[in-house]
């Protein structure tokens, strides 16, 4: 007999923690501002109702793992049951926020193969040990052996990896995001309490405009200095002690990261069809690259397929090779010289067009600025051309493109679900075409841009001869 289990009793507290704290803050503010009033009673009633609701949903929810499926049942006024066959489960994530860790519980997110997000199931929350047990049980389809092979660690973040954070660009904006959300919160709270009036806003604006110049300069300098530091801090919070290791059973790969919110994502090696390496020009100079897995049927893959955050290139290639079972094919073959002019023209085109519009609109100075900017497209286009490449070998293929955001995909031949060859009128004149390898994982397809047309056909025919050769004309 399979045991029906309940979530951890702490669920009621954790689940409503946010609502509770919001209500308590509102209640205390009400007490301070308006004394013992109706607002306070409403708050207390709200807290009680919230707890009652969480308690009821805890009491009415059960789950059970059978040999072939997991069932989640809710039985209150209505009834609902969700049944997920174990062989449809593509991944199990365990997330622990700070409040979960304090109470020794974890949220288990079960990712089912089907399309929509509503097909996924969440167990919020179970005890830590139970979460681990569930992960092994759900992914194996059978209870895992008590002792597996010794733990394999593919990679573990070295302290200097945190210093790579400013290179990625996105983390650099952290201080502004923080300030923005702080101002937004202050404004909303102030507005709710009726502290914000037109006169005060005007007064504040005037005060700001009258700030002495040295103070403004100091603030600007502090912000500029804060950008890289804050980016390192934010990066470290998310990626603290990033560890990529083998899971408790064969074929499982687990990525763990995070300081306060510790996330553990487990991937099935059998569903990994390839990897993607991404970097930008600064990261290329520093010899750093990010590594993602291309996993079939993985929802929100951009966060969950992460194999390595910004890490040294050599290590990233080594990890990719270990996970795919062979090194990436190479060296990449470059694309024809006729593709170079196309890359340059396309890199210059946006600002060139903008210059044209500015000139038409009679803004000569703006037109000159745009023209000057379009000249920057020359080195960009040249670099884009240099980065183009494709290769195949040892059951893997690889395509690479992009400059400011360069990405190289390495895909198993087996994973190819079709070929798309595109040729514009301009490409046709130059004998070029864009060949897209379509894959049921990652972004769905990876293009070899501006490859010579015969090379495109030959490349596809080399990888999947049975599909292409019947349609080749000589």
């Amino acid at each position, binding site marked *: 007999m399979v045991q029906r289990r309940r979530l951890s009793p702490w669920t009621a507290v954790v689940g409503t923690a946010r609502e509770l704290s919001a209500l308590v803050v509102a209640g205390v503010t009400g007490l301070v501002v308006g004394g013992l009033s109706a607002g306070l009673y409403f708050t207390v009633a709200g807290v009680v109702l919230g707890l009652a609701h969480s308690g009821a949903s805890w009491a009415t929810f059960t789950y059970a793992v059978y040999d072939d499926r997991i069932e989640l049942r809710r039985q209150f006024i209505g009834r609902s049951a969700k049944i997920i066959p174990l062989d449809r489960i593509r991944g199990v994530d365990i997330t622990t926020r700070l409040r979960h860790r304090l109470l020794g519980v974890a949220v288990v997110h079960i990712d089912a193969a089907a399309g929509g997000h509503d097909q996924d199931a969440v167990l919020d929350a179970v005890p830590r040990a139970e979460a681990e047990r569930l992960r092994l049980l759900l992914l194996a389809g059978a209870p895992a052996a008590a002792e597996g092979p010794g733990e394999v660690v593919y990679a573990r973040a070295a302290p200097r990896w945190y210093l790579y954070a400013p290179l990625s660009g996105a983390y650099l904006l952290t201080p502004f995001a923080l300030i923005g959300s702080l101002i937004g919160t202050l404004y909303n709270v102030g507005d709710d309490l009726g502290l914000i009036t037109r006169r005060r806003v005007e007064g504040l604006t005037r005060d700001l405009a009258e700030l002495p110049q040295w103070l403004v300069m100091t603030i600007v300098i502090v912000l500029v200095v804060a950008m890289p530091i804050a980016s390192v801090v934010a990066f470290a919070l998310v990626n603290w002690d990033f560890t990529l290791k083998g899971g408790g059973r064969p074929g499982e790969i687990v990525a763990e990261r995070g300081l306060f919110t510790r996330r553990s994502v487990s991937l099935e090696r059998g569903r990994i*069809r390839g990897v993607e390496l991404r970097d930008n020009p600064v990261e290329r100079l520093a010899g750093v690259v990010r590594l993602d897995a291309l996993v*079939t*049927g993985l929802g929100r893959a951009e966060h969950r397929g992460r194999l390595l955050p910004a890490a040294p290139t050599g290590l990233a290639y080594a990890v990719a090779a270990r996970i795919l079972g062979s090194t990436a094919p190479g060296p990449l073959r470059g694309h024809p010289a006729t593709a170079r002019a196309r890359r340059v023209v396309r890199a210059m085109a946006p600002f060139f067009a903008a210059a044209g519009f500015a000139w*038409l*609109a*009679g803004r000569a100075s703006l037109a000159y600025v745009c023209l000057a900017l379009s000249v920057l497209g020359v080195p960009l286009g040249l670099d884009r051309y240099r980065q183009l490449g494709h290769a195949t070998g040892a059951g893997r293929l690889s395509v690479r493109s992009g400059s400011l955001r360069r990405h190289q995909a390495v895909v198993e031949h087996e*994973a190819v*679900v*079709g*070929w*798309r*060859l*595109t*040729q*514009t*009128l301009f490409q*046709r004149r130059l004998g070029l075409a864009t060949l*897209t390898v*379509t*894959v*049921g*994982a990652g*972004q*769905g*397809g990876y293009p070899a841009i501006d490859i010579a*047309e*015969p090379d495109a*056909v*030959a490349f*596809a*025919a080399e990888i*999947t*001869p*049975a*599909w*292409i*050769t*019947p*349609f*080749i*004309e*000589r």
Partner: protein
Amino acid sequence: VREEPQPGPVRLRPPVNRVSARAVVQWGLEYFAAWLTISLLSWGIVAWFAGADLEPLPKVVMDWLPVVVAGVGGLTVVVAPLWRYRVHRWEVSSDVVYTRTGWFSRHWLLVPVSRIQTVDTGQGWVERLLGLATMRVHTASHLGSSKVSGLPLETATRLAAELARRAHDLRDDAT
């Protein structure tokens, strides 16, 4: 038997079958409806600016914008359907669905039957008038999903049923 590497340049030959000639009428009507809307919109916007006494762009541009839009639209409505008819072709071999579509840009798409997830056919109202249908072949990748419009209804239905059956017989996980 392993194929020897081909000497000389290799190209894809066009797929065997053309779509129905009635597709020209269908595309013509669709382009006409789309470009009529765009022309009316551009004319309306220019008229509104004139009425509001605004001139965001020089007068020459404002005067000629609706004319140019209508001209491009008229040309597209005449040329594009015929051009598409010349380009659009399809073929279903024993294990690949091979299509060529597009006009200004051409797309060749090869979808192996063993990788097909679902096949469906659909008819818009213009297609119903003309007895045509569009067949869509979906794979696990949205980029590798192919669409053939302008097929006679009975051909589309027969093909879809046959492909679905063969895909089902062959299929493992199809990813």
